[in-house]
């Protein structure tokens, strides 16, 4: 055991490249437009208020693996980490993230509602502080779909009505749910069906009908690029990416919100920080997840704030001046058929279904 620790300590050298000074705080996030929105809404006001210097690290995509390695090496160099809820659950499961008590460690809403009630169902893990609601949904080329634009998720599976390529994510999550819904399974029974071997085969069989017309993506930027180049007629990706494609880059693309899948993104604090760093990280979290700050972020990116009390405060886009509310996945007009990512199911079936999905894909 000890030998392994020494081995891993050496691995940690690579992570520890940027030594952390006392006043520095390393915050890990996704980079791109998303990190920029956090910089404007959270980091800049916080640095101004406290004088702490925030260093932005763009490693969220590998956060779970890196945190595990850091933890085994006994040298955690990150203070606050932005992860999706499923990763937060895994980090919590592995004891790599700090448990948070929302009522004492998070700010209450302005009207006095406790943080626990304000976040509500979105507190999906003991270690997770939700920040935004985003969704995985479809965009389509308005100039390639003829006179009847798609308005139903099943149009993705309809090659006759909408010929051409589609882009889908290279993993089973979301794709198998959509496949079952379009194969006639009622939305509330999807996971019961997916738990069975036959149900899984059924979902893959449905996906088989469009397999030859699918380009599989693994990076969120792929679908916007494929849509912009006209490589695909429609494709799934995160709604914020589509927003910038449509509104900021003015491409002939429109949203298909039907059966968008809500997912959450938020903060965790790594376990095993020194008392001083943990205190600072908690202080930052208290500041950055209050009602006003969450609403501020929506000025820069089209993701919905995770607090109920933030929704009425969402205003206009900071640069474009357009109203942000209709572009939010949580907007009532967009979320009629929306479903929430099933964390429990995927925690159990991720490994199993992924093996089947990849084998199916390679065939």
């Amino acid at each position: 055991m000890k030998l392994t620790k020494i081995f891993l300590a050496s691995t940690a050298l690579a992570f520890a490249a940027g030594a952390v000074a006392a006043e520095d705080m390393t915050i890990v996030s996704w980079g791109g437009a998303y990190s920029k929105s956090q910089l404007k809404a959270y980091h800049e006001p916080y640095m101004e208020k406290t004088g702490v210097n925030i260093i932005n690290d763009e490693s969220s995509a590998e956060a779970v693996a890196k945190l595990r390695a850091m933890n085994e090496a006994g040298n955690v160099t990150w203070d606050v980490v932005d992860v999706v809820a499923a990763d937060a659950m895994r980090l919590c499961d592995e004891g790599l993230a700090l448990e948070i008590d929302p009522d004492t460690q998070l700010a209450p809403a302005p009207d006095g509602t406790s943080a626990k009630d304000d976040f509500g169902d979105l507190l999906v893990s003991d270690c997770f502080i939700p920040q935004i609601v985003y969704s995985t949904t479809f965009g389509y080329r308005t100039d390639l779909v003829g006179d009847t634009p798609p308005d139903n998720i099943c149009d993705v599976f309809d090659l006759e009505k909408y010929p051409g390529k589609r882009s889908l994510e290279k993993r089973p999550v979301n794709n198998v749910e959509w496949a079952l819904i379009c194969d006639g399974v009622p939305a509330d029974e999807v996971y019961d069906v997916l738990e069975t071997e036959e149900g899984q085969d059924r979902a893959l069989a449905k996906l088989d009908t469009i397999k030859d017309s699918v380009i599989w993506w693994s990076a969120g930027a792929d679908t916007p690029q494929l849509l912009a180049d006209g490589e695909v007629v429609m494709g799934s990706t995160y709604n914020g990416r589509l927003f910038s494609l449509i509104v900021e880059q003015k491409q002939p693309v429109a949203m298909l919100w039907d059966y968008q899948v809500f997912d959450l993104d938020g903060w965790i604090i790594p376990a095993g920080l020194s008392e001083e760093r943990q205190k600072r990280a908690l202080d930052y979290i208290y500041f950055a997840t209050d009602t006003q700050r969450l609403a501020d972020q929506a000025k820069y990116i089209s993701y919905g704030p995770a607090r109920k009390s933030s929704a009425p405060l969402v205003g206009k886009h900071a640069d474009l001046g357009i109203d942000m509310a209709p572009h939010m996945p949580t907007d009532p007009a967009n979320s009629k058929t929306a479903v929430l990512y099933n964390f429990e199911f995927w925690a159990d079936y991720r490994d199993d279904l992924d093996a089947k999905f990849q084998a199916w894909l390679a065939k």
Partner: protein
Amino acid sequence: MSELKGSGQQTADAPTPEDAFHETATLDSREQTHAPGAAPDGPVLAADGTPLKRSLARALRMQKIRALALIAPLLIFVLLTFIAPIASMLFRSVENEIVSDTLPETVVVLNDWDSAGGAPLPESLFEAFYVDLFLAQEQKLHTRLGTRLNYEQTGMSSLFRKSGRQVGKFDTDKYTDQFTALDASWEDPASWVAMMDNKSNRTALPFTARSWDRWVAYLNTEGDDPAKEDIEDFLFTTLYLDLAKTGGKGASDARITAAGSAVGDFETVSLAEQFADAEKDWADPEIWRVIQTFSPKFTSGYYLNAIDMQKTPDGIEKRPENQQIYLMLFKRTMFMSLVITFSCIMLGYPVAWILANLPSRTANLLMILVLLPFWTSLLVRTSAWKVMLQQQGVINDTLVWLGLVADDARLVMINNQFGTIVAMTHILLPFMILPLYSVMQTIPPTYLRAAKSLGATNWTAFWRVYFPQSVPGIGAGSVLVFILAIGYYITPEIVGGNTGTFISNRIAFHISSSLNWGLGAALGTILLAVVMLLYWVYDKIVGIDNVKLG
């Protein structure tokens, strides 16, 4: 190329063992001329009177130590940052201590349980598991174990997570209440510390003593004092179980013997029922057979998984067909790496030949063109291929414009094997050209002229005279390109679609995404073994001495 220059520099700058030999030899001859009185058959002495042999050996040893000290920083660096992490990572492919570390009591009971014979689940299994699970959830280890076992049996992850939440609320507080009703001092943690210090008490209460030690060890890591923390229900449960078995005979505390005679009337709690009420899966022997199968400290499970087999309670069997993927990926990786290596030879050989036969000014200029891609980011180069090859891309647009391809039948050149081969051949080409070029530079052009003057045709002169001399360059380039190709994963991920991905994509997935490091390590180890095997075959057929980098 620079062999002569190199060795010349070496003798000029750095002392070598030969120097030491010359030195002592000079001393030796000086001694012989200056001390003619020394006995001719005695040992030859150095200037300071020690025998020459020892003096020489010492000088050589000093040289060696000095040389070692010079390379020590690099050696330690390589060992620490390169070899050690790889070794520890590969070790994970067989390591499976998490089960027996987290569930030590359960594993012991499971070892005696005859699962194949269809024996019922013993109550003692649930008693042991109760203690293990309670301690594990206190330390947040149960979910980690659940994640580990979920790789083998779907559903384990939530089973452990949910049970961890419930195990603290079991009805075992009945034992606590009954013991405290008997004697209020049972509630006092300090009295437990004193009781567990006594050897005869510990022998009378073996299960309790073991559980107590684990509890104390946990409290110590948390910085808590065992004498101040409440005694949890699970300790009263083990106390009851011990007393029910031994009656507390031999204990030196009167409190224990008193309780020992009273436990016969205690109301009992069935832990098997408690677990079945919490999660009905615990009553399913299959779950326990999986845990039993994966309870040893080391497992072949990951390796079996990596070759599309699986370890089940009934022995080793093939994975269902709809989950077989790794063998196919290994084969595909080998095949595509060979194709890429071959295309690199075909494209790189003429380029290297031109470079080697041009005047050096022009050759240097062209060399920059070969090296230019090296200075461009890998991602940029790969994305550029996307722009070139996609259906709305440059090549298809040109072909459609020329009328060679119909607009509705554009060629599919990316997101498949073809795309990966094109992009990777381009990326790896410099690794073929550079060794080829440096080998070809050393082939004197006079050989070709001599062959021709002796009557060989152009082809014969090339094939019989020039080509054999350039083989070491092909060898070096092929080894480099092949080994680099086998481990590539970014390019196949971006342009490979579903038919052009490599085994390394799966390894990367298991390391960074599914966190199944054991399986990732097993796949990596197999890949390493395959590469070493191919290297050995190459050495047997071509000979590694025939490889030249310049």
